[in-house]
């Protein structure tokens, strides 16, 4: 039975606390579009995406209206394009990126993710060509996202790929220097990438997934913060309970929207991703939740502990609210996309090292961090290697999305606008890691991989 308090609570969450569905993401397999003629393959890719996703945006809008809940993005994830590129040797894979962009424009979606390669144990046909084409692909398209998986707990870390990705991230920033270095903001380097992630820039449709499915990513840091604000004197375990209850409600909404979208589109329901995804909007910050718990500013001592508790409580609350939980599921800490993180970074309280520690206890990794324009590719690679090592040893997903701010130095600000926000250039260590990175090879899989 509905009661007045519950109704008003829901309306307040949506109206005042920025509760929203961050994304409905349709995963589409492109395995049946493989062709040795790249132009034919691109045509099949375009046709398949448009055929499956033409109603995604209208259905999303209809659900928004019916339930009165904003759905911020409608997105598509596809099979890693390197697998399609493998069939077309000596061809420029950027043609696929252009075909994806055309499909994105036709369907009216915000992003298509999956300009990706999985090279955690080594490069197979198509992988190298695709990775090398990433800077161009992200330069000539607007709504295409790219990711590369360079390590996993089972296989270790492919250090040749780590070295290459340092160069690719830098090249991508250089090619888009006239547009606030937007290129690398659409590129994620993963360890233990998941196959059903609805969130960009790291979404792709794994080969173990069905032909087509619908995933939902929920949001709601503002709701959690306001719930905690009502209990200024509660103990930590009481706070954990409040977060669990709030996460349950948020996730139920995601489950409802996902189930409805799946029914309307005639596509199986994949997963709900239980993530707390911030936006630069005031009142939609993960950093402010941590500050509500009692930190003067995010990044100070105690931040990792607060984040660990938050991340765990979100999962515990959400897992019962959804029939299938998946994706990344945890709290996100993208610096430029979170008003509280931006403030803490500008104040010098939140450092790269603290962020690295935080990634050990939450999803996902060093995300949307602006680094000085003169950073070397080897230093980028070394940061990627550090982060991948945390993921590999802890059997969790970690990712790196660094933006070298070409022409800018520590303390200056890079502005992206929209959901990507703005970020101060953060200091990095001066000493070189070049010799380590240039060794190449592979970091062997850790003992944790031997579970059988």
């Amino acid at each position: 039975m509905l009661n007045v308090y519950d109704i008003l609570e829901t309306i307040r969450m949506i109206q005042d606390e920025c509760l929203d569905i961050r994304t409905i993401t349709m995963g589409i397999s492109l395995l049946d579009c493989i062709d040795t003629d790249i132009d034919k393959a691109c045509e099949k890719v375009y046709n398949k995406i448009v055929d499956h996703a033409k109603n995604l945006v209208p259905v999303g809008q209809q659900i928004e209206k019916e339930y009165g809940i904003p759905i911020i993005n409608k997105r598509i994830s596809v099979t890693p394009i390197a697998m399609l590129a493998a069939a077309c040797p000596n061809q420029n894979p950027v043609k696929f990126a252009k075909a994806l962009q055309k499909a994105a424009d036709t369907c009216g979606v915000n992003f298509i993710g999956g300009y990706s390669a999985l090279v955690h144990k080594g490069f197979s046909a198509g992988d190298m060509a695709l990775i090398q084409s990433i800077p161009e692909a992200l330069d000539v398209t607007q709504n295409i996202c790219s990711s590369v998986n360079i390590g996993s707990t089972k296989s270790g870390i492919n250090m040749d790929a780590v070295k290459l990705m340092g160069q690719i991230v830098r090249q991508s920033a250089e090619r888009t220097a006239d547009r606030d270095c937007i290129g690398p903001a659409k590129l994620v380097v993963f360890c233990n990438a998941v196959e059903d992630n609805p969130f960009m820039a790291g979404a792709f449709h794994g080969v173990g997934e069905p032909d087509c499915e619908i995933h939902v990513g929920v949001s709601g840091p503002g709701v959690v913060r306001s719930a905690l604000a009502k209990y200024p004197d509660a103990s930590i375990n009481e706070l954990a309970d409040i977060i669990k209850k709030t996460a349950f409600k948020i996730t139920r909404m995601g489950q409802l929207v996902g189930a409805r979208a799946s029914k309307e589109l005639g596509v199986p329901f994949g997963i709900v991703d239980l993530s707390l995804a911030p936006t630069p909007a005031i009142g939609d910050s993960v950093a402010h939740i941590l500050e509500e718990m009692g930190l003067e500013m995010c990044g100070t001592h105690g931040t990792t502990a607060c984040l660990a508790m938050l991340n765990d409580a979100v999962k515990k609350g959400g897992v019962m609210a959804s029939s299938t939980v998946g994706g990344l599921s945890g709290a996100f800490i993208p610096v430029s996309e979170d008003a509280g993180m931006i403030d803490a970074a500008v104040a010098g309280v939140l450092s790269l090292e603290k962020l690295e520690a935080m990634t050990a206890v939450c999803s996902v990794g060093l995300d949307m961090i602006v680094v000085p324009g003169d950073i070397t590719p080897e230093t980028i690679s070394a940061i990627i290697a550090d982060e991948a090592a945390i993921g590999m040893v802890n059997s969790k997903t970690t990712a790196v999305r660094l933006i070298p701010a070409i022409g800018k130095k520590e303390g200056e600000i890079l502005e992206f606008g929209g959901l990507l926000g703005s970020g101060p250039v953060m200091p990095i260590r001066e000493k070189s890691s070049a010799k380590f990175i240039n060794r190449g090879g592979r970091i062997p899989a850790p003992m944790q991989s031997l579970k059988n």
Partner: protein
Amino acid sequence: MKAVVTVIGKDNVGILHKVSGICMEYNANVLEVTQSVLQDMFAMIMLVDISAMSADFAQLVDRMDNLGKELGLSIHTMHEDIFNSMHSI
């Protein structure tokens, strides 16, 4: 199928009349109304049956939105499923 219409804002003459008038126009039967006026603030929650509506639910939502703008009130029209799923197991 039911929907919940909530109206919050400054009290005025004829709010209930105008909201229920729109419901009648779309053949949405009003099942329950709770209303309170605290000082100058008007708050009403209305449960309506939308299973026999004469038009799309989206049209009703738009009409209510426009009425809210016209009267300077905050009017939300939402399918009951969202409240049921968020607040009950």
